[in-house]
């Protein structure tokens, strides 16, 4: 416990310092509120609109979570498929790697075209953002499985199923979580972008409208909440990772 205080304290103090500087500099130099609003104004705006912001927050979070969940499902499925079938891997893996270079933001309007202005276009943009890191990292996790363990298991008469469940899956878990953590952070951006492209509610819509109206303190409060959401999702996945990777010594097969 003491150790965690020691690691958190410097960061916390630094954030306080930045906050103080923010307030001080915007006040001293009389920065216009539509360039950088004063921190106290942002916090006041947050508090004033707490109910409205809360609703937007929950909606955006829901889109991010649902998209993230579906990405995990699709990403892991395709990684497993590539692992089981060599042809699938040779066909798909290069394509998936190459697709990383496509600017996903440019593709996002297509999702709106296909799925309309409802919640599904936002979820599909989230999937577009988060699918690749999960698929690629899980697939890499499978590839880095220690071949020595596989050979040893074969000399012990292991079946294909044994090899997959007791060797490949546990070996791929760290890679999967690397991708999952990355995806969790960018899922919020995907959801917000989906909302910008056309939507009625959500923090993305809120910040966009506030920006159109040059209400700096409202824009910044929306951005603060979106950042907070990203951090929370990342921390949640990291917590899950620490739970799974710490106790997998005795329970890896039970989860199957």
């Amino acid at each position, binding site marked *: 416990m003491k150790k965690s205080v020691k690691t958190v304290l410097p960061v916390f103090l630094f954030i306080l310092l930045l906050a103080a500087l923010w307030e001080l500099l915007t006040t001293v130099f009389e920065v216009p509120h539509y360039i950088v609003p004063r921190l106290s104004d942002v916090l006041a705006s947050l508090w004033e609109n707490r109910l409205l912001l809360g609703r937007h927050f929950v909606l955006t979070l829901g889109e991010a979570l649902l998209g993230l969940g579906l990405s995990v499902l699709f990403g892991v499925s395709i990684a497993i498929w590539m692992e089981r079938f060599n042809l699938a891997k040779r066909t798909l893996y290069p394509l998936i790697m190459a697709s990383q270079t496509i600017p996903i933001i440019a593709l996002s309007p297509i999702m709106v075209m296909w799925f309309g202005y409802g919640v599904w276009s936002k979820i599909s943009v989230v999937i577009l953002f988060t699918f690749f890191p999960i698929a690629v990292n899980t697939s890499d996790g499978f590839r880095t499985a*220690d071949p*020595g*363990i596989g*050979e*040893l*298991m*074969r*000399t*012990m*008469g*292991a079946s294909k199923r*044994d090899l997959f469940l*007791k*060797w490949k899956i*546990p070996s791929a*878990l760290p890679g999967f979580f690397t991708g999952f953590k990355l995806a969790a952070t960018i899922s919020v951006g995907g959801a917000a972008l989906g909302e910008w492209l056309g939507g009625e509610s959500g923090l993305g819509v809120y910040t966009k409208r506030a920006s159109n109206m040059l209400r700096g303190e409202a824009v910044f409060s929306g951005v603060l909440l979106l950042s907070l959401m990203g951090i929370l999702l990342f921390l949640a996945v990291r917590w899950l990772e620490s739970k799974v*990777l710490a106790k*997998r*010594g*005795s329970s*890896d097969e039970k989860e199957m």
Partner: protein
Amino acid sequence: MSENRTRIVSDQAPRALTVSGLSYSFAGGPVLFDKLDFSVQAGEFVALLAPSGAGKTTLFRLLAGLVKPDAGEIRLGGSSESQSPGQKRRIGYMPQRDCLMSWRNVLDNAALGLELSGVPRQEARRRVRELLPSFGLEGTEQKRPHELSGGMRQRVSFLRSLLSGGDPLLLDEPFSALDAMTRASMQEWLLQIWEQHRKTVLFITHDVDEALLLSDRVLVAATSPISSLQQVAVGLQRPRDYSAVLEPSFIQLKRQILEQLGRTPVIKEGAGQ
């Protein structure tokens, strides 16, 4: 004293492993084995001594059935009566690296072989627990591999191979990655364990001292490609301990083997990994 018997194994004793006419070469690469014959008797501890890079590990992979020979036959167990289909006989393989699963504790790592042959988990764990004390692993049941020393990891790996029930046990330079002090104590420990279990062992090494200290018989691979093995019976009495390396007969045998190897300096390099 000078009974450096270079004898052929008598045919009466039950064989644990028979290799006949084994040939293997890497695809498009050098020939490693050319019509190689040798056998290991049941209950015998045989060391296979070869300079680094001679294909020792490939030989183990052949014996373990991980790669197929170009020609020849590898038979496990006694004569042909064990060739009943469906009931495949297996060797117990202990790889050079310990290959422990980082996500499993000591108990479940050691139980892997039992688990794969269908022994219920509780029963498998019980059998591992029984043997932990004599492997110097008492109290480490819940530890993960990264919490163990190199010597302890090798002991877990050995226990796993022993419990997998395969016969003979193939040990592929298991101590080559350990420091000299740990290696010496592991060799003594292996001698003790072997006295208790008397399993058939084929031990690959490039260390003459290790081969002589541990085995009943040393097979020396001095040619390349390996087409025959020179046999040296080690007449040292059992049970042995590390002091055996100081005995005159040990020195004598060592000199003989070094001569057979043409005193190639390669032996002294530990570059077998």
